[in-house]
């Protein structure tokens, strides 16, 4: 190893259960990288954690303005972490704009570390500050640490012969070093990574190492920080872990399904925030035989995926709100042609273009009903970044077994945030038999069905199975066009029964009701799982009896869902929408479920939900 921080441990250490840190700076300041590295060191230390990058809107605003702020938040703890945290204990603000943008995300009394050098008149103005908030009383009530990060960094690398610009650019490593010291993160991990990344460019490498060390040593040696904070490792299942973001996990789950079924993966998509990362990730893995196409639009993407499904591939198309609208007609075609296909909808705040970088769970009812005619489709939603992996495999399993399009409802939060993932035993992953049709000498009936009501998947190139499919109503069994009244009704019922029948093939709804006599059920779906877990833990901590359950399959719901929701006197459904699951539950089971609704483009905070649960229990 080139070098490492020189400071020795001379300060006191304070124990904490959990900490939330937020790194914020200009888009060009490398905050995502900083956060990412900190996350890694934290994961390796054995803390449980959850992270959330918080990008600015798509267009890069002029440097130094509030619109250009990019932030990264991480919560880590000595126990189960379910969310990236409601409010930050520590904010690292690289410039005034970052402070201005994120101050309201810091817990009252929290710590704020600012890059003093950037608090120039000009930058204050750009951020819209009339006077310096670090001195004018704005930050009263916070612990504020001004650190001249830029100048120390520049000084630290002076001797290395890198230009001033390069030197300044490595100030994020200074911040990383400083915070690493504060929380006793391992140094080696970061240094090793720097070597791997910049090994080929010795000057840059040296500069980054020097900055990182300078930050670390600054913490150790200056009087500014009284003590280090220690967060013990979380007790976790033994095994090999990595940190994974939802977009990676989802992509890998699709690849795994392809490997374990022998059905090649075909991904057609049109770029759109926040779904584009799936396209980016999958196109890296062409050595798995993954075909990726950037189509001319979402309609084309869906039709290409459907054409590939017809051809014996696992056809997948991913998009977000505006794009899923456009795919509606094609999804209907997939429903009537009964081909295995996955539609990934990475939800974002709507309606219309809405707030493309913000989160929402607004598309559930659209997924259920967003096609003309009676057009049922299975819908599944992951509950955490790592869960995207198994949900992707599950979606593929159902799509292939049932010859059906499946909608996978992810969201912006799941896509972008990350968590440690206990890597599965690859050989123990489920296999999926595509059961391609084979000619057997008798007349081929493309719409005959097996016990699951699945029709044959007869792929072009197979002799003897030539047949024609399409969007006009099919005759039962033969698949010929039919305008016959009873046939249409029969086919309508079959399509619905097939989807409903999947309920027999999925896990029942698991209820977590430790005392067995809870009054209230908190029912969730999708990315709110973590918050719900946290909030329920808190209210249970104060002695309340609350049950919780989480729906992975939204259509069909597990067979025991009705039983579960009607068992509890009160049902609260937290949703990042106006009550979409609530409406399905009410209609299906006539249960008087209520919504905890938040439509702000933000996650639900555990404390908000805690309040709501308590209110419902006692209100």
């Amino acid at each position, binding site marked *: 190893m080139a070098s490492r921080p020189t400071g020795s441990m001379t300060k006191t250490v304070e124990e904490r259960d959990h900490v939330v840190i937020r790194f914020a700076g200009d888009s060009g300041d490398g905050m995502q990288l900083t956060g990412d590295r900190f996350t890694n060191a934290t994961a390796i230390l054995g803390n449980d954690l959850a992270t959330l990058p918080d990008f600015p809107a798509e267009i890069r605003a002029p440097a130094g303005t509030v619109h250009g702020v990019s932030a990264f938040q991480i919560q880590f703890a000595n126990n189960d972490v379910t969310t990236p945290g409601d409010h930050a204990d520590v904010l690292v603000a690289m410039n005034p704009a970052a402070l201005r943008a994120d101050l309201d995300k810091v817990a009252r009394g929290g710590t704020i570390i600012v890059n003093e050098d950037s608090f120039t008149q000009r930058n204050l103005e750009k951020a819209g500050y009339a006077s310096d908030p670090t001195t004018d009383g704005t930050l009263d009530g916070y612990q504020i640490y001004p650190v001249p990060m830029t100048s120390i960094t520049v000084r630290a690398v002076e001797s290395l012969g890198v230009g001033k610009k390069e030197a300044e650019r490595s100030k994020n490593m200074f911040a990383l070093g400083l915070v690493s010291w504060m929380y006793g993160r391992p140094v080696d991990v970061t240094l090793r990574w720097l070597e791997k990344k910049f090994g080929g460019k010795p000057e840059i490498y040296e500069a980054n190492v020097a900055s990182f060390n300078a930050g670390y040593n600054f913490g150790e040696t200056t009087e500014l920080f009284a003590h280090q904070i220690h967060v013990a490792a979380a007790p976790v299942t033994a095994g090999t872990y990595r940190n994974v973001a939802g977009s990676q996990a989802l992509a890998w789950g699709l690849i795994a399904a392809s490997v374990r079924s022998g059905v090649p993966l075909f991904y057609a998509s049109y770029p759109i925030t926040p779904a584009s990362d799936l396209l980016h990730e999958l196109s890296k893995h062409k050595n798995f035989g993954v075909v990726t196409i950037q189509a001319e639009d979402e309609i084309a993407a869906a039709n290409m995926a459907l054409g590939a499904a017809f051809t014996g591939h696992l056809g997948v198309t991913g998009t977000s709100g505006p794009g899923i609208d456009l795919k509606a007609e094609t999804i209907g075609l997939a429903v009537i042609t009964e081909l295995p296909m996955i539609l990934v909808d990475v939800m974002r705040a709507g309606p219309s273009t809405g707030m493309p970088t913000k989160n929402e769970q607004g598309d559930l009812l659209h997924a259920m009903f967003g096609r003309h005619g009676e057009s049922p489709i299975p819908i599944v939603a992951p509950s955490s970044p790592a869960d995207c992996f198994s949900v992707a495999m599950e979606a593929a399993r159902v799509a292939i077994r049932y010859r059906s399009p499946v909608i996978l409802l992810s969201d912006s939060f799941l896509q972008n945030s990350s968590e440690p993932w206990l890597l599965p035993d690859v050989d123990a992953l489920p296999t999926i038999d595509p059961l391609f049709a084979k000619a057997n000498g008798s007349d081929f009936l493309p719409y005959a069905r097996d016990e699951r009501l699945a029709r044959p998947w007869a792929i072009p190139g197979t002799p*003897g199975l*030539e*047949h024609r499919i399409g969007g006009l109503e099919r005759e039962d069994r033969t698949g010929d*066009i039919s305008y016959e009244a009873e046939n249409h009704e029969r086919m309508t019922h079959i399509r619905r029964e097939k989807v409903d029948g999947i309920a027999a093939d999925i896990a029942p709804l698991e209820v977590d009701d430790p005392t067995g006599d809870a009054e209230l059920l908190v029912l969730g779906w999708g990315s709110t799982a973590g918050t719900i877990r946290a909030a329920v833990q808190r209210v249970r901590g104060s002695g309340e009896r609350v049950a919780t359950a989480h729906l992975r399959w939204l259509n069909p719901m597990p067979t025991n869902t009705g039983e579960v929701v009607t068992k509890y006197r009160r049902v609260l459904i937290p949703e990042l929408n106006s009550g979409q699951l609530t409406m399905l539950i009410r209609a299906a089971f006539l249960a008087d479920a209520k919504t905890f609704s938040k439509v702000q483009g933000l996650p639900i905070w555990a404390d908000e939900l805690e309040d709501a649960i308590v209110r419902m229990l006692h209100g």
Partner: protein
Amino acid sequence: MAEENGDVSGIATLTKKDFTSDQEPRWCPGCGDYAILAAVQGFMPELGIEPHNTVFISGIGCSGRFTYYMDTYGFHGIHGRAPAIATGVATANPDLHVWVVTGDGDALSIGGNHLIHALRRNVNIKILMFNNQIYGLTKGQYSPTSEEGKVTKSTPFGSVDHPFNPVALALGAEATFVARTVDNDRKHLTDVLRQATEHPGSAFVEIYQNCNVFNDGAFDLIRDKQQGLHNQIRLVNGEPIVFDEGTRCVRVGENGRLEIAAVADSDPSSIITHDIHGRPSLAFALAHLSHGPTEPTCIGVFHEEDRPTYGEAVRSQLERAVERLGPGDLKTLLHGGDTWTVG
């Protein structure tokens, strides 16, 4: 069906019957679609490609029904999207022979975007566009190829839309093979289809097709055995472009422009020699000699150009990825980043 599982008995045994499904065609009596169907079914056997390696994909329109009558694999898609479905099929399995059957509305109105993108990508699909200059299936509205002023159900006062020139549009969209033929000239049609099949990549073939119910006679000037003689400018690669029984020609006029002139009045060196393999601007100029079949009009292959097909390019990229990264291994993928092990 042509043969049973596995028992692929070879080229010589294929006949028209092997490509004819058990569904009875249901176009209007007299529709030009019948002639095209017969020509295609008749011509397929000579390609020596088995029905099970052939896929017909269509959109919605009278032409869309075509798929049901071919005893091959078939996908009757939704309106306008056949080129996209076909891109999926042809890219997923580049060994298949993929045909798209579409109409002037299906291909140029709702489906215009997929068409031009399939062409620029050079997806290996043969696109047969049945141009009847009308919406047949929906019973008689004008289409993007209908002439200005056309009175139809949706334009009782006459249409105000200027039509596309499909050949010019395809050329503008970087098509690598562009041709035009007519429904009732089986020899010409078959000949063009043969060249389209031999072309590696997208082939765009406009077929003048008579809709005798909603737009009867639209192509008479070109299609009629008598009138056609005078008005068809038959393009033959490598030959001077003369027509009307040798009396008229296409020549280079002032400032490089092409024009129609009497052979007698023309300097032989000014007469254009048809060259399908050069830059597409010659083909474009030929397409613009007339705007629609109301004046002497070119038929035949306008342009052909060599470019890697999309399916092959994608496939070879997959192969190169394996060469570069090794065959995909799940464990390597999942364990690829920073990992740590507990207990």
